Every structure is written in structure tokens, then in C-alpha cells.
């Protein structure tokens, strides 16, 4: 028997947890990318015929709306499913019985899904810009905006997966949240084409700020609104992660 009080360095533990989560998905990542692509791309093609290619603002909204759709489908829904799966299979309990930090587990899961979602996001941006004729002018702010959007979406997913009792419940709840977040606010449709009530609700919807920040940093129209969007997103992401860590089923459950 070796002396036992060793705990892994947090950086090493985070790296190992990300590897475990990525390894979990190595068998299914093509399907993951595909499901993250199919719905947004199909919707984008359908909406591009409606928009007629004339209205630049509308096309930018459609492109970013589809990115949000992919983020929500790929990150939020998948992370919700992953947490529910970990709960049902005893994986969360396995980690809880090891010298593993639940904060690092939450960050690693969100981080792993961020990496897995990158290919789909990239394809949607490139194909969307071509199909909708949106001129891209990428801002360095994207390096901050994309992770914040992903962490927020994945954090909501993790929270849904932790708080629901079954995988079915988690899937249904996540789907409802996806439609609410893309529908309630100027995410997919410009604000001037939405009823005032939806725009008012949209102020409370984090997807509104994520879409606004994504639009600005993809089309090079960074203005005074971006810091506000980033601040709201950062606060939201931090709040979701804190709530997740607090509510994740872990040790000494009652």
C-alpha cells in the first residue's frame, strides 16, 4: 500500500477530465457534428428562399440565428443529455467518489463540448455566408464571444441534465428552452420585424445578447453595444456555472 493523501494537480485533472469526456464521444462525434449541422443548415436554406437575398440585416440575422440554433442543439441539448446520462449510469457518482473537483468536471464537460461543436459552427458560418451572401469580416472579439456563447449554452444544458430526473425529461426540457431562446427576442429575426412584446421579453433572453455579439464580431460591426453583450454573457455564464456546481448531484446527498 502506498501512502494516500495525494490529489492530482487541478490543471492535470482538468486536462484528464476533458480527455475522458472527449473519449466518451469519440464513437459518436460524426453523428454529433451531423445533428449540429443538419437542422441549422436545412432551416437556413429554407429561410434564404424566403428572404430572397435582398435584405442584408435579415440575412445576417438568419446566419447568426442558425449559429445560435447549432449552439443550442449541439451544446445545450447534448450537454443536457450527457449530464442526464452520467446521472443515470452512475458516472457522476463515480466521479464524486474520487478525489475529483465537481467544478473542474463541469468546466471539462462544457469545454469538451465546445471543442466538439467547433467543426459544425465553422461549416455553418462558411456555408451560411455563401448561401445568404453575407460578407464576413471576422473580428478578434470572436475569440471571446464564441467561448462565452458556448459556455452559456452548455451551462444551461448541464443544469437541465442535472435537475431533471430522466433522459426523456431532460430532452424535452432542453428542446423547449431551445425554441424559447431562439424565438423570444431578436435572435433569428431583426428587432424591427418583431412585435414589441417579443422585443421586451428578448431583453431577458441571454440568446439576444449572444446573437448580437456574434453578429457584430462576424460582420465587423463592433460598436458600443458589444461590451454590454459581453458583460451580460459573462455574468450569465458565470451564474449558470455557479448554479450548476451548487445543484449537481454530488456527495452527501440527502
Amino acid at each position, binding site marked *: *500500500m502506498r501512502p494516500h*493523501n495525494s490529489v492530482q494537480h487541478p490543471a*492535470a485533472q482538468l486536462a484528464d477530465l476533458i480527455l475522458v469526456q472527449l473519449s466518451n464521444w469519440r464513437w459518436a462525434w460524426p453523428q454529433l457534428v451531423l445533428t449540429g449541422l443538419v437542422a441549422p443548415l436545412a432551416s437556413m436554406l429554407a429561410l434564404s428562399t424566403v428572404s430572397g437575398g435582398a435584405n442584408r440585416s435579415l440575412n445576417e440575422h438568419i446566419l447568426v440565428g442558425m449559429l445560435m440554433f447549432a449552439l443550442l442543439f449541439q451544446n445545450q441539448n447534448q450537454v443536457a443529455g450527457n449530464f442526464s446520462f452520467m446521472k443515470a449510469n452512475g458516472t457522476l*457518482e463515480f466521479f464524486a*467518489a474520487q*478525489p475529483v473537483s465537481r467544478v473542474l468536471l463541469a468546466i471539462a464537460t462544457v469545454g469538451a463540448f465546445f471543442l466538439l461543436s467547433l467543426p459544425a459552427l465553422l461549416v455553418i458560418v462558411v456555408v451560411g455566408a455563401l448561401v445568404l451572401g453575407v460578407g464576413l469580416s471576422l473580428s478578434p472579439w470572436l475569440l471571446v464571444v464564441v467561448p462565452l456563447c458556448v459556455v452559456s449554452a452548455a451551462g444551461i444544458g448541464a443544469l437541465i441534465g442535472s435537475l431533471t430526473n430522466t433522459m426523456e425529461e431532460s430532452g424535452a426540457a432542453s428542446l423547449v428552452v431551445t425554441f424559447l431562446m431562439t424565438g423570444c427576442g431578436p435572435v433569428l429575426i431583426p428587432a424591427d420585424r418583431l412585435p414589441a412584446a417579443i422585443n421586451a421579453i428578448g431583453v431577458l433572453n441571454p440568446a439576444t445578447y449572444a446573437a448580437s455579439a456574434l453578429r457584430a464580431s462576424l460582420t465587423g460591426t463592433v460598436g458600443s453595444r458589444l461590451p454590454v453583450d459581453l458583460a451580460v454573457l459573462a455574468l450569465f455564464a458565470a451564474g449558470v456555472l455557479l448554479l450548476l456546481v451548487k445543484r449537481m448531484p454530488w456527495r452527501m*446527498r*440527502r
Partner: protein
Amino acid sequence: MVAEPADSVSVSGVSVPDVPVFDVAGLTKVHGRERRVANDDLTLSIARGEIFGILGDNGAGKTTLVRQMAGLIAPTSGELRFMGTPVEEAERELTTQVGYMPQSAFALNNLTVSEAIFFTARFRGLSRRAARGEVARLLSQWAIEPLANRVAKQLSGGQRRLLQLAVTMAGSPPVLILDEPTNDLDPVNRKRVWHLLTAANQDGATIIFVTHDAVEAEKVVHRVAIMRQGRIVALGRPLDLKQEIGHRFRLELIGTPGDPPAPLARVHCTEVEPGRWLAILDKADVGEIMTNLDMQKFDDVRLSSSTLEDLYLHYATT
């Protein structure tokens, strides 16, 4: 040679306080809104270096007890201490010193066998190199080298159980809590489990396990707790417990499933599986019962001194 302090013992050259590994006093666990009592006023102590078995029928509260010991669920009332510290304050000690194996074997289903052991060893503080060494050692020890690159979810129930045991022992934690370690295993592998657990115990590990397999557990266990309906109905060394129920014999009859054989009607007799009858007999009754038994009706008749299984049946069912 440096003497150990009076209240310390040496484990692998490290001086540790000589307190019970687990000290349980008046432990009660009530589940959910329906207020189902899973553990009712349990009191026991498990010493360092013991092999401690927890026996009992389904729903007796064994798993609830060990899940509280592992710090996964909180007691409703009573005291539960790990190495002298209340479990609610001992997260670091419990997670670094206890290897807990739950009943279900699906936790690391998407990893390969090697990865599951490797990452567990890493989480328990081993360097990458040491963790790779641990993978090689445990694959060989549990005879699962051919499965090294197989994904856990593709394994049979028995293979998965062996992987689970290897994962639990990754990094050689000094305390092992094993919930049904021999479930799904064939006789050869059951024997391997008891052999390796005995070896780990000789190397200093304290082993606590839950089992239904009283016959095989008897070969390794130092003390047992027999549970029934959330309570401990017997606690001690198998030998002492056998003496408590008097000098008795076990009569095992293999025949046709159905009513108890006629001569056994007035003694406690259990059909432990269809067609397999077990009766615990007082010495004075043995002669009369054997004389009246119609041997033609049975495929096999065995008379022997009582075993841990008899104790289990005596305490858990009467």
C-alpha cells in the same frame, strides 16, 4: 528502529492514528418523502486491516450503509466517522483513501478497459508513468489483458465486474468498499476475487464488502454483520456467531421442488433454491431425522457442521 506512538500504527511505513476505519453509532437513514427506513439505529466499528462482510437479504439496507460509508449519501441521524472524523468533514480523506465499487457497473462505459483504469489511477494522484504501470499490473492481476482495448460497454457482465474491481483497486487505496463484488462472475473468477482481496488485505488494505455469497465469503471474512429490515441482527466473528446459535448441523437435500420433506416439518427448513432444501438441526434431532428420511426421494443428501450461510439464513430469515 523508531517506535510508533502508543495511539498510532504503521501502514507502509507511514504512521497513522490507530482509530477504527469506520465507527458507526446509532446510524439511521430514512429515504424520501415516503419516509422509508433503510438503516435503523446501526452501531458497529470496523478496525484497520479487517475483512468485514455485510450480509442480508434484498432490501435489508446493506447498500445504503456502504453508500453512507463512502460519503455519497448523508445519514439522517446518528454518527458515522471515518478514521475518527465525521464523514461530512472527511471528503478529502474518503476520496483519497477509499476505493468504492458500486453494484451497477456502467460508470465508465464509453472508455476502453485500459483507459478506465488509467484515468482512475490519474485521479488518485498517480503520474502518467505510474498510472500506465498500474494499468499493466491490474490487467495482469485480474487476467483481463486481452480486453485492454475493448470498450467497457461491449464487455459481458462478468468482464465488466472484473474491470470494475480493477478500477476500484487502481492506485491501491487502503480501504476498499465493495458492493456485491462477485455478482455476475463464474466460479473461477469468484475464486480470483476472494484470492486477490485476501492478498490486498495481507498488504494492509481494509476490506468491507456486501454479498449474498455467504459460502465463499466465509473463506476470507474476519467479521460479519448480518442485516435484516434495516437493522443489524448479528455482528461478530463467524465462529462466535455459530456458537451463539448452539452446536448445530446443516442438512442439505437436493430433490424435487415443492413442500418441505416430511421429517423436516417440525424444524426450520428453507428452500434456498428450487429443489435445494436447507435445514439447521440441533444435535439431538439429527439421528431421528436421518432415520426417517426417505433417501430414495433425493438426488443428494449432505450433513455437515453449520456454515456462514446457515448463520445468514438463521438470522436473516427467522
